[in-house]
């Protein structure tokens, strides 16, 4: 059966994401890991991924930003697997304790993704490599990652990667349906994040203003 484009409803692929940000020094990471091991589901998932941010620059409308991501130490099985992600602007809700934004994900497979992206008119703004661990607690996802930037774009050997800072970025997020109540989910997320204090303080960062 052919896939008929255009007939899918938006809520089938568009989700809302509630997210909180925090950072922790590397020397204190062990305390956070021990706390997460106690309150989260058993086991954590290590990851090492490479993300690139592309933007479609237009003169009349604001730039559209797309993020591409793939596994960093990829083998032949995963080398052509990419993830497209569009992140919308945060909802302007001052009462909401978490950042709420629309997200759209798409998994694609291509051996020449860069040519395709270039043909689409997208131009790379920046790229970075993230490495860390992920925990889950039900639907809540806790990602702890160290960000490395490339000194020269396109070169990913160890000499060309340098850490952005000595801290680890911690993100706690939950993905809900587009039509669900984001305030309730955000409050539950904030309540969950209080279990991690005082090791780390998760907060709603207005990164658009910064």
């Amino acid at each position, binding site marked *: 059966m052919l*896939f008929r484009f255009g007939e899918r409803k938006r809520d089938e692929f568009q989700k809302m994401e509630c997210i909180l940000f925090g950072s922790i020094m590397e020397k204190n990471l062990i305390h956070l890991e021990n706390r997460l091991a106690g309150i989260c*589901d058993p086991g954590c998932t290590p990851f090492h*991924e490479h993300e690139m941010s592309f933007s479609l620059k237009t003169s009349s409308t604001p730039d559209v930003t797309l993020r591409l991501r793939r596994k960093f130490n990829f083998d032949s099985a*995963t080398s052509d697997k990419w993830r497209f992600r569009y992140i919308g602007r945060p909802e302007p809700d001052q009462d909401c304790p978490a950042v709420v934004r629309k997200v759209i994900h798409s*998994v694609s497979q291509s051996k020449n993704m860069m040519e395709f992206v270039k043909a689409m008119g997208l131009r790379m703004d920046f790229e970075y490599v993230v490495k860390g661990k992920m925990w889950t607690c*039900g639907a809540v996802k806790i990602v702890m990652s160290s960000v490395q930037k490339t000194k020269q774009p396109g070169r990913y050997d160890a000499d060309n990667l340098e850490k952005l800072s000595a801290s680890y970025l911690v993100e706690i997020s939950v*993905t809900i349906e587009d039509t669900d109540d984001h305030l309730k989910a955000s409050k539950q997320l904030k309540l969950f994040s209080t279990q991690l204090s005082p090791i780390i303080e998760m907060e709603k960062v207005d990164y658009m203003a910064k």
Partner: protein
Amino acid sequence: MAAPSGSTVGSNSDGPGTSYDRGVPLNLASYHEWEISEIGYDGTEKFKIPHGYQEHIGALARKIDWMSLIGEEARHDNLVIHNEKEKGTETAAVDAIEETKKKSDERTPPEAGPWHVVAKHLHASLQELTVLLDDLAILRTTDYLKPMRVADRLQDANMANEVTAMVQNSKAFQWSSKRKALNEAANVFETAIKTRNNQLGSDDASRRNKDRFFSELRRMRELWRVRKNGESIIGDLGYKIFGIKSDPRGVFHITRRSADQMKASGKGEEELNVLQVSVPGDLMRQSTLTVSIVKDDGSITSVFPEKADSEYAYMEMDKAACDGMPWEKSLKRAQETLICKDIFNILFQEAVQLRRRLAVVKEGVIMVSLYDDYLLRFELKFHPFTMDSIPTEGDPFLTRFLREYHLAMECSRPVRPQMLIDLPLTHLPEALDYRGPLAYSAQDIEARSAKAKGLLNRMTKVSGHYVLVKRTIAVLKSHQLHYGDPTLRWRCIRCSPLHSLFLCELNNRNYEHIAGKLSFYVQVDAESVEVQTKEGTEISCRRDEHELRQALHLMSATHEMISVSQIAKQISYQVLHANMNAMDENGVPCPTLYLVNNVSTRTVYIKFPLGEVPQTYVRNFIADERMATEEEKKFTSLNFSRMPGRSLCKKFDTLFSLLKN
């Protein structure tokens, strides 16, 4: 003439070469020094003696230009006033005086020019430097003179720090400082112990009581989730490991039984736990959740029997007795009740939504129709919260399977991360991670996604399969017992909660080399039993024991026929026909075999009815049926039981040997 200039005190020497410091070194120098007018070659200094008062006045007077002040024709005394008086005005005189003063203030520059001050300072500096050089030369030659700096505060502090560092680096200082620190720490600990003892009380019993409390609390932490909430300690009876773990329904409070309370209980210290738990009221009972299969005989009492009053005894809770129970047992019982209630709630919710089966719920009992007249019964029973053990009821296998399946579902991760961690968590299987790139349609995704298996559906299937397996085994055992020839051997080659496969073999003892053996399978699933031959024939027996028996008989008859034909061939008989699909007059399968000996004198006709001994008929061979008489066409029936031989094969072997020629 030498005059005292800066003199150095504070250093005393006993002679050349020896010097020692006495006190703080000081450098005293007068603020005002006589100016040196000349220094001779032998080092003697000639000082300029400062002027006295008269001389100073004289020097100043000589500097005044009197002629410009008074004029050439002016007189010496009050000249201006005298002149003004001659003029006759006082104001003019005053003005004249002021003017004179102004003029006297305007000094004329000295003859040396504007740089005379600079020259003067340079000369003075040169003189100071030469004095300094002379001092240094004298200091170098004399041993008893030591130069001391006029140290400023910063230099003093640095020196003091250096001295302090030297002292601190010494071992003696370190040891003494460590000893001091340890003594201080020991004092603090002693104070703390004294305070703690005061709080604990000087009573040994109360101290032991607290020690036991903490040791029991440590033991409890190894088995249960315990946390402190403010001033109270609470525990968690929950058993879930995924998702949010703290469930308010399973929270219990932990307290300490004081020494007075223990004395008041009348029990010894060793009999009673110091740690006391208070479980929620609705969990303060013993529970059992049993599964059984009952046959519906049409009466309601067999399905929902009347409950006696004793079965409601759990409602009369004796809190004191409950609190007196050891916490190890009370927590286990309370958690067991929590698990049973959770399972029953899940079963109840699914029973309400059942579509293909009937379900009835009444007072803690759920009845679900299985098949035919059989019902699957779940019963949640409560018993008083005592130390007494409760009787086990229901089917042990099904009861245990229900419990294990529920806990297995709780231990399985409901959502999982996808191939990249920032993708949303999903409940789909891993094979569907690339459903986009592989262009799966919605139907494909639906077909490949793991279906949620309800607990009740699973239990009905497992129970149905369990019943059918028991029936199959009973039938096979019965067949083995009652029908020894051919011999039936069976074993289970695959057994799962929903499917089982038995391998059955029929063989004739001592004739395996001739007749071989016949193998077939009996497959049991949740709904039916099926016999599968090696040729691929499937005989569905549904859930009927009689049909399974008939199928076994059919296989036995088939094997008998094959065995007999093989034996006949060994003795050079000819098989005229062998019909496995023959039926008797009632339509029941009855394989037949028609043989003739090698000299074509005798024919043997054998029928193999199901579940009975073979029927053997013999007659002379008729070449042409049209020419034979009725007497010749008649078969002679042989009594199988009187045929020589113990086994079927032996009997027919003997018969064929007899009729060979």
